[in-house]
């Protein structure tokens, strides 16, 4: 209920979606820098693959030499050679 009001108010007032929504904001700069905001937790990570849990489902990053450069509670900076990423499953609330 509150969520719906929040969304519609946001639409009326022209708020950008990252202020209103709960989903992650992913910024990819070139091939080497990825910033993920508003994630929930890290599910698994290695040099080849990083899996994050977000409100919109899990996100997979694939690449070479991936490294979590900075880990904050709501923000994640990844560095490394990114080859692909996709969303998987998760139920929309």
């Amino acid at each position: 209920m509150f969520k719906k009001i929040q969304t519609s108010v946001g639409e009326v007032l022209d708020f950008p979606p990252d202020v209103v929504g709960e989903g992650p904001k992913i910024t990819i700069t070139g091939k080497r820098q990825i910033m993920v905001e508003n994630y929930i937790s890290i599910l698994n990570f290695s040099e080849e693959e990083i899996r994050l849990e977000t409100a919109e489902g899990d996100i997979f990053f694939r690449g070479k030499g991936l490294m979590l450069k900075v880990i904050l509670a709501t923000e994640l900076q990844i560095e490394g050679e990114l080859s692909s990423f996709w969303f998987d499953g998760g139920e929309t609330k």
Partner: protein
Amino acid sequence: MFEWLRTFWYGRILFLARGEHLAHFVNQVSKEGIILYHTQKSERGMRAQIKLADFRRLRRPARRTHTRVHIVAKYGWPFVAARWWRRKGLLIGIVIIASVLTILSQLVLSISVTGNKNLVAADVIERAEKLGLRTWVYSKDLDLNGIAKSLQEQLPDAAWIGIERQGTSIQIRVSEKTRPSIPDEVGNLVASRAGIVKEIMVIDGTPLIHEGETVRAGQVLIKSPQVNNMSSAKNAPVSVARGFVRARVWYSAEGQIPLVEDKVEESGRVAKGRGIKIGSRVIMLTAQSSPFEQSREEVITQSIKLWRNWRFPVEGIRVDHIELHNVHIERTVSEARQLAEQIARAEVQKKLTQGVPIVLETVKVLSDNSGSERVRVEVETYEDLAVYANP
């Protein structure tokens, strides 16, 4: 740059985490509010960096997820400081050296005097010390200009004194007054001309010659007496030699008269002409040209001065034409000799000291075959040679 500085300041710990649930561990850690940097998985486990202050807080998530944490490396100021703290002696030594250097560099360590010739450097330094300028004194407290000024007042021989500070050394630069020098000869009796001494009479002083000695002009005859007591020195600052030195002195002069002579002489007749001068133009009214065969001109201009240096532009002019004529003289040998002797004698008379009796006079005819007669007159006198030296 600032990021790097901050990292260095807070200190970083590079650790290796090993366990089954590393992702879970990372989540727990970030929930605690701890920031992980450069987190990377490898075969042996997970490498990550963390701030030194957060390291203790890592324990709880580690225990919960059964992860073991090993420190791989430490980096940053807190570790460097701890290492230094263990070497307190070295640190204290550095501090002591630095402070000693700082204190010493503010002291006066050496004083030197330059530019002095007659002034004694030790005396200048001693006077400066009395004014407060001595070694091991804080140089900031010194009023160098004031010291220079009072030093200059104390030393009358110094025209100017400047004090310069270069680090720990102080240089007193002196520029001395150039005083008129008092010659050593003052008060001495010296010979006015060359001669043979015949008689010495010393009233005061030391004679430096003996009778029969030939003296040169300027030679010291009687030396002034040395002053011993201060009271007489006050009355007569320079003691004076007194006495007479009588000597035979010779004077000589030559005269030369040719037997045959041609010369131009003024005849005594003068013709006067008057005219007007306007600017550079001359208009002669009387005696336009010389009436004589041979003549010399003397021009006198007469101008009227109006006021200050304003002159009347028309000037009066007077030209005197003085007649000249050739004279041919032929003399006999005796006439010529007599004339030459007269000339030579007049010459000698000029050299003689006035009022001196002539003891002996000889006239020599010098052989000359150029058609003229040469005569030398030699005069011997007996006179007092001693005069005071010209200071």
